[in-house]
């Protein structure tokens, strides 16, 4: 079975909510929808206080090429447009909407007949994706329409669908594939047409055998779609690692996957594309895994964007008393949440409630040069060295050691026997070095 070549770790996958059916979350009383839920420029608000909106109404317009539209996820009245603390505690602009009923925009066809043939051209599909504000649903939230338009001179050969879900605990993609396999495959076909490729590979880790079997059955009737089971290894869900695992090509440092002829999209994105093209439904809801070892009912929930995390936690049985940290995303790459009333966003794949005993950091010790971090680094970096360089603020040397290549998977911190916060330092070094590099290229 295939996997990527360099580094990687095997954390306990703890998929507590695997096989749990998707539940629809009841509408909250109020949603607060951030205007910056994607990488790139924040969208500009186009509604005012007191406006009536329906589910699917555009509330913020994309500004610039790398940006995405934001739509209302509920029907109701705009209560205020204000800066509210997000999950990290920093204040960001949000549109707060009081929920009244559940009315959708007229052109949204909620039933959606099960079409399999489309007469849309690549440009038409991309335009619709852009209007619907679809972004990478795996968590990176890069606007999808930008990815589907390769820069001049580059040709895409293969569409890679990321259904790896290598983060422990998370099961939202798994649940999606089990319950909406047909829709996902239509979404993949639409993405293939948009990217003008005739070959798609869906990479799934081998701990989701039922999903692999189901998709293989359904895809056997379709041309050009290949289901590829992958050996379990973290961080296989990273773009560069997945390309290496599936087609054996290495994306050069600093380059995009299109350099080796690949376009990578998340399986959740494929489903969102299906919803947009067939049902005319913009991206206003997503499946979120709510999980944790002490949580009463770990589950996969279909939830409207803008719902407070606290409502979702309450829906899954309430916050356990021994909770030490609430993490947005998975335990490896997710971030600890400071404010549990922060809203669910387009890129929120899960909420993880870590018991105190598991979430506490251990006191750091001296580096014993065991080299474990070097052997697990999937980008072939030397994390122990990078941490030292960043500690001493030796930015030039850190740049020579390619600190900018780090994808922040956290394997080094996970494996370090001295519990050194390697990733914390490397992430800081990466952002500083990249800033220095940008300033330098701006000067030229």
């Amino acid at each position, binding site marked *: 079975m295939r996997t990527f070549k360099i580094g990687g770790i095997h954390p306990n996958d703890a998929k507590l909510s695997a096989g749990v059916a998707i539940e629809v979350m009841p509408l909250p009383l109020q949603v607060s929808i951030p205007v910056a839920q994607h990488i790139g420029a924040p969208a500009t608000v186009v509604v005012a206080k007191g406006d009536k909106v329906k589910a699917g109404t555009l509330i913020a317009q994309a500004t610039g090429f790398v940006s995405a539209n934001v739509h209302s996820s509920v029907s109701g009245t705009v209560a205020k447009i204000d800066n509210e603390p997000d999950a990290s505690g920093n204040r960001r602009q949000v549109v707060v909407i009081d929920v009244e009923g559940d009315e959708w925009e007229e052109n949204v066809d909620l039933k959606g007949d099960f079409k399999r043939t489309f007469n849309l051209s690549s440009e038409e599909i991309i335009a619709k994706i852009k209007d619907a504000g679809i972004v990478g649903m795996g968590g990176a939230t890069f606007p999808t329409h930008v990815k589907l338009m390769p820069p001049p001179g580059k040709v895409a050969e293969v569409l890679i669908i990321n259904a790896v879900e290598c983060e422990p605990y998370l099961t939202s993609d798994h649940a999606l594939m089990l319950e909406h396999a047909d829709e996902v495959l239509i979404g993949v076909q639409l993405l293939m047409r948009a990217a003008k490729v005739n070959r798609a590979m869906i990479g799934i880790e081998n701990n989701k055998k039922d999903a692999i079997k189901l998709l293989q059955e359904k895809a056997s009737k379709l041309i050009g779609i290949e289901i590829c089971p992958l050996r379990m290894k973290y961080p296989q869900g990273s773009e560069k690692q997945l390309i290496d695992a599936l087609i054996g090509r290495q994306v050069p440092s600093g380059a995009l996957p299109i350099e080796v002829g690949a376009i990578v999209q998340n399986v959740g994105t494929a489903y969102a594309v299906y919803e947009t093209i067939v049902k005319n439904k913009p991206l206003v809801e997503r499946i979120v895994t709510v999980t944790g070892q002490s949580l009463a009912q770990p589950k996969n929930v279909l939830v409207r964007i803008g719902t407070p995390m606290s409502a979702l936690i309450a829906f899954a049985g309430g916050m356990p008393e021994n909770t030490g940290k609430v993490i947005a995303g998975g335990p490896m790459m997710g971030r600890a949440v400071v404010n549990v009333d922060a809203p669910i966003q387009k890129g929120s794949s899960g909420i993880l409630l870590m018991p105190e005993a598991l979430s506490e950091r251990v006191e750091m010790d001296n580096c014993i040069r065991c080299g474990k971090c070097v052997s697990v680094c999937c980008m072939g970096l030397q994390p122990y060295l990078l941490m030292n360089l960043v500690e001493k603020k030796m930015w030039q040397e850190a740049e020579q050691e390619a600190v900018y290549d780090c994808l922040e998977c956290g394997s080094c911190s996970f494996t370090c026997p001295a519990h050194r916060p390697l990733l*914390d330092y490397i*992430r800081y070094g990466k952002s500083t070095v990249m800033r220095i590099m940008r300033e330098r290229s701006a000067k030229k």
Partner: protein
Amino acid sequence: MNIILISVIVLGVVGIFSATILYFAAQKFKVEEDARIDEIEAVLPGANCGGCGYPGCRGFADACVRSLEGKLCPVGGSAVMNKVAAILGAEVSAADPMVAVVRCQGSCEHRAKTNRYDGAKSCAIASALYAGETGCSFGCFGLGDCVGACQFGAIAMGADGLPVVDDDKCTACGACVKACPKNIIELRKKGPKSRRIYVGCVNKDKGVVTRKACSVGCIGCMKCQKECPFEAITVENNCAYIDFTKCRLCRKCVAVCPTHAIVEKNFPPKKEVSEQV
């Protein structure tokens, strides 16, 4: 014997020949350097801290020779500048000594913690991750990046978790200003007898939000701006700022500030004049 003689003669001739070339080359390509640069460098502290904005003490000395206008060695202060001026035979323009000021008073007592940070002990790293341990996303992290940046041992963490600047040791080199990811530390005029007034808060949230997060935060109520007779105070983005070039240390703003966000340093206790009248 012959061999030794020949080698001595050959090497001697080569040596004399090379020396002649070097002599003329040195004459032709001589770099004219002001001898005063060396003299000035000798009286400078030699810390090469870069606080003056020039690359090390020699760079500063070179700049002084060209023009003394507005030059100040932050480490040596006026004593050193007088010596420099004596070497150059010029009058030194009296520059105000500066000092680093921490514009946050959000100790644990005033600013309740809402979460606990257990990551790497560095303000820069914490600030890249999230807003901070309290409801205020502008205030001091208390992880001591400024302490580490100070070459003169002038900053230490106080008992209340906020950095304390030692006025006597601070040379206003500005290293801590650069190290603080929240831009809390500012270089301000030291003032007569180290007396100075500044707004001890940089919170730009609305007054209600600030008040909820911290009991000594600036809520942008504009009272100080109206009170100031010298138009030294401006309120921008819900936060007041005192221009130290205009402030005349009358302390009227301190009295009207409802949250005690304005700090007065090193003043003698106020006489209770008004009550007696």
